[in-house]
């Protein structure tokens, strides 16, 4: 579905007492393919570039270099019609169910906006479509006349999902869709997303920092650190046997809701470095317990290991 080729996104920032120009490398040379029908998760900690990558995939931002292709077509070489089609086929579900719905629009207008923009349904037909969509995401049809602030967070997230589904997309990019929700509501939304995927054959690009959720929902997982992809693997393999030291540390750090599996995690030292001044060589080497000679001056490539996996580490492969 999507192909990313050496995609890089840099931002110019001014910082420090002299307001010197610096470059923030939000995404730094990412190669990645999203296959039709799969759920690919992007994981990483804050500032690793996963949300920037989502915006690049959604054609909300232009890569500084590299290419993003959707079904073979470069996103920035499309004509108007192709962009329109792209906007229908690729939709997004947002993190914050409070900020992602226009507070001055009724639910019917919010969900129906895509139908209006793409001229898919009007008048009574549109109303009927909206009601149908609300029902599919588990909201009562009366919700159509209400404003977003009348709903709880989970219900708002359902509205956001109905909006994304309205234009019958093939791909849904979900940026932390459950992280702002209460635990009991998270599960409802995850179940809803999984059900919709099966019913409609959707492709998900799922962005999350919550590895428990990622393990639960994904087919494949891409781990990002400081703008780079450090590991890419089928979810089952990754969680059974993480290869990159960062992935291992990440998995170790997740508190498992099972006291019998209590363990002393191998705690990573230090903070994530700034993407403005990333360390030379492997971006992870200052925190890496396994670093050795080449790590501080040679950037490891993302190399395939085994059948469907790839890892960027001098220790592996």
């Amino acid at each position: 579905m999507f192909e990313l080729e050496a995609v890089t996104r840099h931002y110019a920032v001014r910082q420090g007492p002299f307001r010197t120009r610096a470059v923030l490398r939000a995404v730094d040379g990412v190669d990645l393919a999203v296959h039709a029908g799969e759920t690919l998760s992007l994981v990483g900690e804050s500032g690793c570039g996963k949300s920037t990558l989502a915006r690049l995939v959604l054609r909300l931002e232009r890569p500084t270099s590299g290419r993003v292709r959707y079904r073979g077509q470069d996103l920035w070489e499309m004509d108007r019609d192709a962009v329109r089609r792209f906007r229908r086929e690729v939709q997004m579900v947002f993190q914050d169910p409070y900020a992602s719905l226009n507070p001055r629009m009724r639910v019917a207008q919010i969900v129906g906006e895509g139908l209006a923009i793409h001229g898919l349904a009007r008048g009574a037909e549109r109303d009927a479509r909206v009601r149908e969509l609300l029902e599919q995401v588990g909201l009562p049809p009366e919700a159509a006349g209400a404003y977003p602030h009348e709903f709880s967070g989970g219900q708002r997230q359902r509205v956001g999902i109905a909006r994304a589904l309205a234009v019958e997309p093939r791909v849904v990019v979900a940026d932390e869709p459950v992280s702002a929700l209460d635990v009991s509501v998270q599960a409802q939304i995850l179940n809803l997303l999984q059900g919709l995927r099966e019913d409609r054959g959707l492709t998900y690009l799922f962005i999350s920092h919550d590895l428990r959720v990622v393990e639960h929902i994904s087919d494949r997982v891409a781990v990002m650190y400081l703008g780079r992809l450090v590991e890419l693997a089928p979810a089952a393999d990754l969680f059974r046997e993480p290869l990159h030291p960062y992935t291992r540390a990440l998995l170790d750090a997740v508190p498992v809701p099972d006291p019998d599996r209590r363990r002393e995690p191998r705690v990573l030292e230090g903070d994530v470095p700034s993407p403005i001044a990333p360390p030379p060589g492997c971006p992870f080497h200052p925190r890496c317990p396994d670093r050795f000679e080449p790590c501080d001056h040679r950037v490891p490539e993302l190399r395939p290991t085994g059948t469907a996996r790839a890892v960027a580490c001098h220790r592996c492969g």
Partner: protein
Amino acid sequence: MTRAEPLLQIENLQVSFFLPGVEVPAVRGLDLVVGAGETVGLVGESGCGKSVTALSVLGLVGDPGRVKAGSIRLGGRELVGLAPRELRAVRGRQVGMVFQEPMTSLNPVFTVGYQLAEALTTHFDLSRQEVRDRCVGLLREVGIPAPEDRLGAYPAQLSGGLRQRVMIAMAVACRPRLLLADEPTTALDVTIQAQIMGLLARLRRELGMAVLLITHDLGLVAQNVGRVVVMYAGHAVEEAATADLFAEPLHPYTRGLLGSIPGAPGTRPGDRLRAIPGNVPHPTRVPSGCPFRDRCDLAVDACADTLPELEPKRPGHRARCLRVDRRV
């Protein structure tokens, strides 16, 4: 289970917010005991009253909120109704608190050293040099590299993890007997969360503090505390040793919560999660009788009549549910 002499004993705590024309109850009769040196987890979703409980212990429930009834005893001393002066002497000195958001709970216009020194000099009479030495010592204790240099730093110059370490240093500056940690790692990344939880565990051991960990994250609870109290809509609905709670959750709400998180015992990737239907009720619209009955798949008519007691159902394991049989 042998329980230590209770350090903190909360009985029938009721806290409400009095808005024009409505009373919004946040805590509806909570009993909670934390023994000296013990780690207790207070678990629940947003609006269940867990944070308000912590604020009540510190006497920090502000207008229009008020402790309506109940008692909070710290080492045998009643805190409810204490004069503001006396409460200030308790805050920081005997009870320390760490908040969720380290960016907003540190004052951005003062240096780290200044705020840390203030925490000390509020309760102790120390010379300038002593204050400085102890600040450096505290920062070193919470694992901040180059502590001498950090004293002059402003909160905005520190990362989220470092800020939370500073908050913890402030909270433990006066060696309190009880540390209240309200979602201390929710705003942090997982690898940093692991660091902070490790730090809290180390400090607890070294300083012999009791810790009340307030969180929505059952994973954090499973890995870090000895005993758990689950709250729902202002009530404690279940209480047990951590191992017992996860081995046999009794209350349908606890079971629902555990079924909701991926990775809990019995869930497999890809399966549907056993989500709890419905939403957390607004504090003014909590159903009569059992507060959970409108979302509960075991509910019967009797659940609507009276609020069940939080009673022992298994040895050392209490739950507030009519439908759970007693086997004590």
